[in-house]
């Protein structure tokens, strides 16, 4: 339980590096007079539920967890900050040679990431659906469920989808834009496999608060972190950003439509409401 003015943050432990990241933030905030602690969860649903019970003040949420919070607490969820690298991402569909459009994939096998990954599953499958290729009916979806509950934060699902594409067990793979370059550099994705589709831009994680949680100082100190500060830079490098930006929610429209269309969180919502 939060006590006094201490700010308690919730984060999902998708990787061992999550511990040094938030320990580093704790030291950063502590040195600037803000009592700060964090709690780690094994999956986003557990974190959002704890947030709804007010066990944490702020949650470091995936885009899907943001929508879960927003729908479970209508009108109360606010996105207060996000990474520069959370803004304007795209996902791409990479296909085996000979395939040049989504339509060419009708009746084919599509490799995606974890079932709850916005970037490698939900948003790309929405694109297929909106192009008239309904998943499960017009295309066969092959999921690569690595660390379900972590909303695709772990890159393993996308890597497995690309490996399946190269091995010929699927006809196309869906990955986040930056991972195309990363997988090419790792040598697991040959240039012969072209990008045949790119989604419109969307946004990724944010710090979510519910109601009027007292997070003014937290937000102020967060936005003041400078990449040119050598004490702060290692934390930003680990968390994968150069600067924090004020939160915005305009970049979640595609995921909202995907969640509605695929009823991704309906059962969960029914349980927590």
């Amino acid at each position: 339980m939060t006590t006094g003015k201490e700010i308690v943050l919730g984060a999902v432990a998708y990787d061992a590096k999550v511990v040094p990241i938030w320990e580093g933030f704790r030291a950063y905030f502590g040195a600037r007079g803000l009592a700060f602690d964090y709690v780690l969860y094994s999956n986003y649903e557990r974190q959002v539920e704890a947030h709804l019970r007010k066990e944490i003040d702020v949650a470091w949420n995936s885009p899907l967890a943001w929508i879960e919070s927003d729908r479970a607490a209508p009108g109360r969820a606010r996105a207060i900050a996000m990474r520069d690298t959370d803004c304007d991402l795209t996902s791409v569909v990479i296909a085996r040679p000979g395939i040049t459009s989504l339509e060419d994939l009708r009746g084919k096998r599509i490799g995606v990431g974890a079932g709850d990954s916005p970037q490698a599953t939900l948003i790309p499958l929405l694109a297929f659906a909106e192009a008239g290729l309904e998943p499960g009916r017009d295309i066969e979806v092959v999921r690569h469920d690595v660390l379900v509950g972590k909303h695709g934060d772990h890159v393993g699902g996308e890597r497995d989808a690309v490996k399946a594409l190269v091995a010929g067990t699927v006809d196309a793979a869906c990955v986040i834009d930056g991972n195309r370059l990363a997988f090419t550099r790792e040598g697991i994705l040959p240039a012969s496999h072209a990008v045949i589709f790119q989604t419109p831009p969307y946004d990724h994680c944010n710090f979510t608060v519910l109601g009027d949680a007292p997070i003014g100082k937290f937000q102020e100190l967060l936005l003041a972190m400078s990449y040119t500060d050598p004490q702060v830079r290692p934390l930003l490098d680990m968390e994968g950003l150069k600067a924090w930006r004020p939160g915005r929610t305009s970049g979640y429209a595609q995921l909202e439509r995907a969640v509605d269309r695929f009823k991704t969180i309906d059962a969960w919502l029914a349980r927590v409401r």
Partner: protein
Amino acid sequence: MPQVVDLGDLALDEGAHLLIKRALAVHEQIEVRGTAPTLGVDLPAWCRARGLRINIAFLPGVYILHRGPGRWDKAERAGSADAPSAHAEARWGLAARGALVEAGAPTLDLPLADRSAVWADEAARLYAQASAAQWDPATAIPWDAPVTHPPEVEDAIVQVMTYLIENETAALLVPARFLARLHPHFREVMQLLAIQAADEARHIEVFTRRARLRRTELGLSTAGGQASLATLFDEPDFAIASFLLSVLGEGSFLSLLWFLHEHAPDACTREVARLAAQDEARHVAFGLAHLARHVDEDPTLRERLAASIERRHSALAHTAGLNEEVFDALILLAAGSWEPAALRRGHAAVVELQKDMDEGRRSRLSRLGFDAAQAAALSQLHTRNFM
């Protein structure tokens, strides 16, 4: 108009990022053009990961990039590549001298960080000389040279070699301990201490091999001899340790090695001694060079050096000094036989050796600015163990 970077059909997964980075190093804003099919996917993602702002121009395949927050904004040069700084900062860490060091690198505990305490202009030249003068024990020593001297003279050689190995072990470990505390900014000194340790390792090898040429067991190691070396080992001050080890100890050893070169009865021992003496001369030269410089910059050092000899003398007063076995072995080695006339010659040679050591010490002390009377008195207080 921003600087234009034309990538042609080179993709980001084919090395195009080098052209972009090169341009951004000079220009705040650049225009990137390219025809690679994946450029539209890769370039925005690549920029996002690096905090670079990107605008997509109205023309296809044209992007405007703005430089992002700088990792190198607060970086500083680790001094100059040409010459060492007066003080090496701990935050420079292991960076090459003159490298641009990113702020926030870990600081290392490297207490020997002042030029006045460690530096000698001769270090680079002595290191180059040492590198060029490395010799291969397998081929440089006539291991098969005939041994015709009596068995007891061979025993004397084994005793002397046993003593040399023990002393050279100290001569390896003492500088090596300082090497690990020396700021690598003083690169030439670091290299010189490293090659000095390699020299001593080789000496230990050849002395051991010579000792075991005709014998399976080695000679004696005395408590007094080890006590003398322990005082070197325990000395925490670099200047004082260099003074006691290099200037006085190895200086005395130079005389001893040349003595062995001159008097040993077999070619193998003579050559082992000659090659080791050449290396030791460099060690003495460096010790003298950096201490002469140090004394110039800090005149109080001379008093501390003198006090260190006196302190060591007191600490060793209760010990026997040079073990009698080594002393006698040197006489027999120089005599080459049990003939009384030969023993007289051998004894006279060892007396002469000690005189020679004393003269060498006095000469080196005077180079550090001690007057003749001080030098004579201090030389007399030097350990009877030679090292």
